[in-house]
């Protein structure tokens, strides 16, 4: 319910306080799909440091999912290199799988058990965790997401938002170090979005979780991410930086067909009309402050 729009998302800080151990690295990976579609994830190198929150932006079909699939070892790099926790995920997935939680785009397809509880307990059971312990882990994960009351329900009958929360619980049940999310906000109502962002912030702070996510929801990026990468059609990684840096690069954004967040547009409009207007602020409270100060200063 609380809107974390005012959450300090001041980029670099966070990553620095936790040291700069690189968790994910993707260097100029190229992938040709069977039908000849070529995705070249070159340009800049994609990295995610420990305990950072990284957002991947880009138009439809630019290769966000392809990039994540490489990180998850679902696609093997035909060219270039992928490293997750120091190993090639396509080769040694077994070595790192317990450290990675995943929620892909369509949550429907990730709920595989007949009840919510069984579904959340799926991974621990598969990994051979004793039943009592697996049950405890599952209950903890359900509590974490505030959906303990869904435990006995059938996943197929839940609403879209509830399904997504169940999938997240399933991804978090083994307390992973890296969380990979493909468009996690799709189909969520704004307040569930805010809740999810808050939860991710909490997990990062409490557990040092690293998060990599792709999203179309530009307006949540400043709230959520420490870093953003912008892909161009065809896959080129054209831009990286803190959300503020990225959204300031209007030309590159345009090349990627991305409309900047509303506040960035507002400040751009203000500046166009009056060059003395303040520098863009990307959260509502910061923006209100900046405008207030600007008005008083004038």
């Amino acid at each position, binding site marked *: 319910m609380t809107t974390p729009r005012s959450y300090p998302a001041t980029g670099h800080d966070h990553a620095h306080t936790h040291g700069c151990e690189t968790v994910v690295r993707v260097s100029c990976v190229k992938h040709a799909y069977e*039908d000849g579609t070529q995705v070249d994830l070159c340009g800049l190198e994609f990295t995610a440091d420990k305990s950072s929150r990284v957002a991947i932006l880009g138009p439809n079909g630019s290769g966000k999912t392809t990039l994540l699939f490489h990180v998850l070892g679902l696609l093997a790099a035909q060219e270039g290199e992928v490293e997750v926790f120091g190993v090639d995920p396509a080769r040694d*997935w*077994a070595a790192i799988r317990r450290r990675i939680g995943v929620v*892909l785009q369509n949550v429907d*397809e990730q709920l*595989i058990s*007949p009840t919510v509880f069984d579904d959340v307990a*799926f991974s621990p059971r*598969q990994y051979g965790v004793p039943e009592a312990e697996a049950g405890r882990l599952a209950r903890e994960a359900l509590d974490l997401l505030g959906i303990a009351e869904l435990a006995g329900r059938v996943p197929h009958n839940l609403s879209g938002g509830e399904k997504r929360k169940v999938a997240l619980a*399933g991804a978090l049940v083994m307390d992973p170090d890296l969380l990979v999310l493909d468009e996690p906000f799709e189909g969520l109502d704004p307040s569930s979005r805010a809740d999810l962002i808050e939860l991710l912030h909490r997990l990062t702070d409490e557990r040092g979780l690293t998060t990599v996510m792709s999203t179309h929801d530009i307006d949540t990026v400043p709230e959520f991410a420490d870093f953003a990468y912008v892909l161009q059609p065809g896959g080129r990684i054209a831009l990286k930086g803190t959300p503020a840096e990225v959204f300031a690069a209007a030309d590159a954004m345009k090349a990627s067909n991305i409309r900047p967040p509303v506040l960035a547009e507002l400040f751009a409009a203000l500046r166009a009309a009056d060059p003395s207007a303040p520098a863009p602020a990307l959260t509502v409270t910061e923006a209100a402050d900046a405008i207030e100060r600007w008005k008083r200063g004038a």
Partner: protein
Amino acid sequence: MDIRAVDLSSTTGRSALHGAAPVTKLLSFAFVLAAVVVQQNLLVIMAIGMALSALAIGSRLRLGLVFGLAAYPGIFAIVFAFAAAPDALTGSLFVAKAMTAALAAVVLICTTPYPQVFAPVQRIVPGVVGDAMLMTYRSLFLLAEKSDRLRIAVRLRSGLARRQPIRAARAAAAALGGLVLYAFDLSQREYDVMRLRGYEGRLRATLPHPLDPRVDAALIVAASALLALAIVFRLAGAGLTPYSWLPTAGALLALLAVVAWRLIRR
């Protein structure tokens, strides 16, 4: 799944054979199949097989796909031949017949999109069956994708549990259960959509006009020639056997010519 590769080949190919009318191709297929069924002479069967191979190569089909699919019944034919054939010649005949018939089917389906193969068929079968055949096409791809994604989910959430077959089997059953449920829900949603959009029976697939009527004519002529050849050789029996190398040699020449043409004009 092969079906996707086959679909890609038939929907994106640009050869003359791709452009021929589906009805022509179906008829020619029927003729070739009849020729294979009728014929007992290994060399003639091989001639038909080589002619089909030339067609596949000339149409720039993915050879691995085409011959892989065509070889598949060959495996069973080999088993059959080992046990049942009185001599090597008869055994080879079984294998050749199986593979040639399959090759004909595969060349057809790799150059003709599934909906177009079924559009003419649809016109002669009962309405429900024809419509269901066309619905199967879309559903196949939706379900194949769904099943891929379920497999991905199982992999991501439990790794490859090859060493724990019981757990793997349990996960497999759950995933399949999920697939069955999804299939049912899908049919419900498709039903809703069809109702909303006014379904009254009879789905239709447009039959494209042939790009070049001469190709169609040539196809029919060639297929009937093969059938005629097969019948003549069958009826004449032993009398023509000494000459059975002739069609084979002809087909071989044609095959070589096509291969050379492909090598020159890549």
